């Protein structure tokens, strides 16, 4: 029966996340964002330790490893919205944990001991983060929607040498490089064929000799999340660190992974909500022509548009998250995840743009949050999960049945609860 009320546990997590965002993130968010050097913008390790203490960093990890055991996507969306209300970049914490949990508990893992070792390490070390490395300078969108020519897709190679792979290549736009201890890295183990036949996934400890951070990317927004290049120069990775079959192919690998498109979507809503709340307050206080600008229809109409778009997006994202959470009981609807995510990204840009319009000259001042939130939301519109355009293209293929949707049978995850179908790392 349809019911929109939150459980006690969800309300509790919502409160923890909101208090954390208000007390720990907001007070430092603007200053970090304004650092000229992108290396200084990232939130680590100070904030991460506090995040750990609040129980948020390990909330997704099963109880038996010492985590919070929260395995539904909806709760993650609720928490993601609150964290991003503090700062969009801090939501990266959540994604690191959901990813490591889902990958290491999936059927890709051959060596259960190895998985257990790393999950326990993750819980133990309060500054542990992971990253996932796909994008390269010459291949972005075509990785999201696999183009199976030998000339397309990532070029980073892994060549077998005894019990090791020797990895060479360069990835860019990768989150958490410099802080992450593990990097899930897509490589070509057979470059003479396309990614569907020649790609594999390796788990790379970042202290491996021959692995190093390259340039740190200096972005318009989302600056509290660090993105950088990784360079592999004859890095030796043990074969047992391969996840899934050699040359398993990108779709086969991704089918076992779980994504975070909806957590990102909820994050966009959180940041846009922050802008809406600030605008509402400002419009009630700011007097023009003898009355608060909120009472001028040209402003009032914008406020109600913002409210409408936020509520529509949250309803849609929660519904999509719920669908993933109950995927055993109802048929999977793969385009919904992507469509909800694209929609939330789009409206977050509309909302922050309207917030800027309401604040006029005040909004562009870097001493206020408005222009930062505007940059953050637009930054993600263009870049998260391949950018909104790519999300729409993927949704479109899923919708027309050409790509993405598979049966539950094909989508087996051994633990946890949610799968973003066709929405891998």
């Amino acid at each position: 029966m349809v019911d929109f009320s939150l459980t006690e546990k969800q309300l509790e997590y919502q409160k923890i996340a909101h208090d954390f965002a208000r007390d720990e993130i907001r007070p430092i968010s603007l200053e970090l964002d304004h650092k000229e050097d992108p290396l200084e913008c990232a939130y680590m390790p100070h904030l991460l330790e506090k995040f750990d203490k609040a129980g948020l960093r390990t909330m997704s990890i099963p109880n038996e490893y010492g985590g919070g055991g929260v395995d539904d996507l909806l709760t993650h969306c609720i928490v993601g919205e609150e964290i991003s209300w503090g700062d969009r970049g801090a939501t990266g914490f959540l994604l690191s944990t959901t990813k490591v949990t889902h990958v290491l508990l999936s059927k890709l893992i051959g060596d259960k001991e190895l998985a257990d070792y790393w999950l326990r390490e993750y819980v133990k070390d309060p500054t542990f983060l992971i990253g996932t490395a796909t994008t390269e300078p010459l291949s972005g969108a075509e990785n999201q929607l696999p183009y199976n020519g030998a000339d397309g897709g990532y070029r980073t190679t892994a060549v077998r040498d005894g019990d090791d792979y020797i990895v060479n290549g360069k990835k860019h736009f990768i989150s958490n490089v410099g802080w992450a201890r593990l990097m899930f890295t897509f490589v070509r183990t057979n470059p003479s064929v396309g990614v569907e036949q020649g790609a594999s996934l390796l788990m790379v400890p970042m202290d491996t000799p021959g692995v190093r951070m390259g340039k740190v990317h200096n972005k318009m927004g989302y600056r509290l999340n660090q993105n950088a290049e990784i360079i592999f120069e004859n890095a030796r990775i043990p074969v047992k660190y391969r996840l899934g079959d050699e040359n398993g192919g990108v779709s086969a690998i991704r089918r076992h992974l779980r994504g975070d498109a909806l957590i990102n979507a909820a994050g966009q809503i959180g940041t846009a909500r922050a802008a809406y709340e600030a605008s509402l307050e400002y419009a009630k206080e700011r007097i023009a022509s003898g009355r608060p600008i909120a009472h001028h229809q040209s402003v009032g109409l914008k406020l109600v548009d913002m409210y409408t778009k936020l509520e529509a997006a949250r309803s849609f994202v929660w519904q999509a998250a719920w669908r993933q959470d109950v995927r055993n009981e109802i048929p999977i609807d793969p385009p919904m995840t992507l469509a909800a995510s694209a929609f939330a990204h789009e409206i977050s840009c509309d909302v922050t743009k309207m917030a800027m319009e309401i604040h006029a000259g005040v909004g562009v001042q870097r001493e206020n949050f408005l222009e930062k939130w505007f940059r953050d939301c637009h930054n993600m519109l263009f870049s998260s999960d391949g950018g909104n355009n790519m999300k729409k293209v993927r949704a479109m293929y899923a919708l027309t049945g050409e790509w993405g949707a598979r049966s539950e049978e094909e989508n087996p995850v051994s633990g946890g609860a949610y799968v973003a179908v066709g929405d891998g790392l």
Partner: protein
Amino acid sequence: MFDYRLTDEQVALQQLAHEFAEKEIRPIGLDLDHNPDPAKSAYMEPLLEKADKVGLRTMGLPEKYGGGGVDDLFSHCIVAEELSWGNRGVCGMLLSATKITHLLGNEELCPSEEIREKWLRAYCEDPNFLISTATTEPNSGSENLYPYSAPDAGYRTSAVRDGDEYVINGMKHFVSNIGWAKLYFVYVRTDQTKGIDEGASLMMVPRDTPGVSHGRVHDKMGYRLNLNRELILDNVRIPVENRLGPENCGVSYIRRHMRGDALINAAAMIGLARAAYEDTLEYSRNRVASGKPIIEHQAISMKLIDMYTAIEAARAYVLYAAWRVDAQWNGVDGKNIPGDPKMSPSASYFAHEVACDVTRAAMEIHGGMGVMKELPIEMYFRDAHNMMHSDGGNIMKRLKAIRNL
């Protein structure tokens, strides 16, 4: 706790409504719409009788009087989407039932069980019974909905007390169902020196009361299966008991006892948009251009995914808003959840805009075929845009929401 599953009863209602739309409405909808005489376009007795037979006409009325007893807004939204998938104009049936239930079912507005019993039972027993609510007049439309309470604003139709009766004079227009509904609820001024929030009352006028006559049938661009007509009231005398609520209780007081019509209309817009989307998806798969189905051209499929996205977002929002209304009125797990008065108009205008956008895209993808009357696409488009002004129009809906920001 969060749950999006429908109850078995809701699923059954949804199926019932969908089958009705498919088997009874669609086969005649296009022809009715194309009839140049607006009086003949409007859906007529045969359809209503069939709806009555399967229980759709009276689903909203209390069981006690012979109705279906479905009293939640949520279920009505689900049914509205399906009926409107058949034809947008047919949903008026649902509004008729919910309105009479809310107006007469409420002790404050209608203290007399005798009156309640009489009319609700008549409604259930007569397979052609519909009601009509008359508000708009040629010189006052949106200001009735977004009350501007000045003596010179709002409707001018007056009711003057004369012993145990009121004498009503005036004229209403754009009124749904007028002429073949059997009971009219008419908004009047009982104190002309005050604005409608202090000087208005609501009167119940049976169709066959002397002095009631019917003017022009409005000839509309779309939504043609719904009859809209002028109502003329010339020295119409009704007993004082036919007044609902206290004299001069004002429009806001009355409206507090109604609920949810806006969201039933919003859900109907989604059904309409979905119909246009489904046809367009099908068309895009079959129509070949430049050597492949047009769905394989990104210029087309990008539009399709935008349509899909807008429909899903609108449904998720409208159903959430409906759930909020139910949770406020009926409670959840024994406790009432406070309502958010801006949410209904907000979800409503959003759904209306989505329907306009989706039907426009449907027409664009259909190319020349999209404007041809042999397909329903151009009807969907006209229907969607015709409703831009409903419930005060999208601008007015925004203003209602603003008031509660």
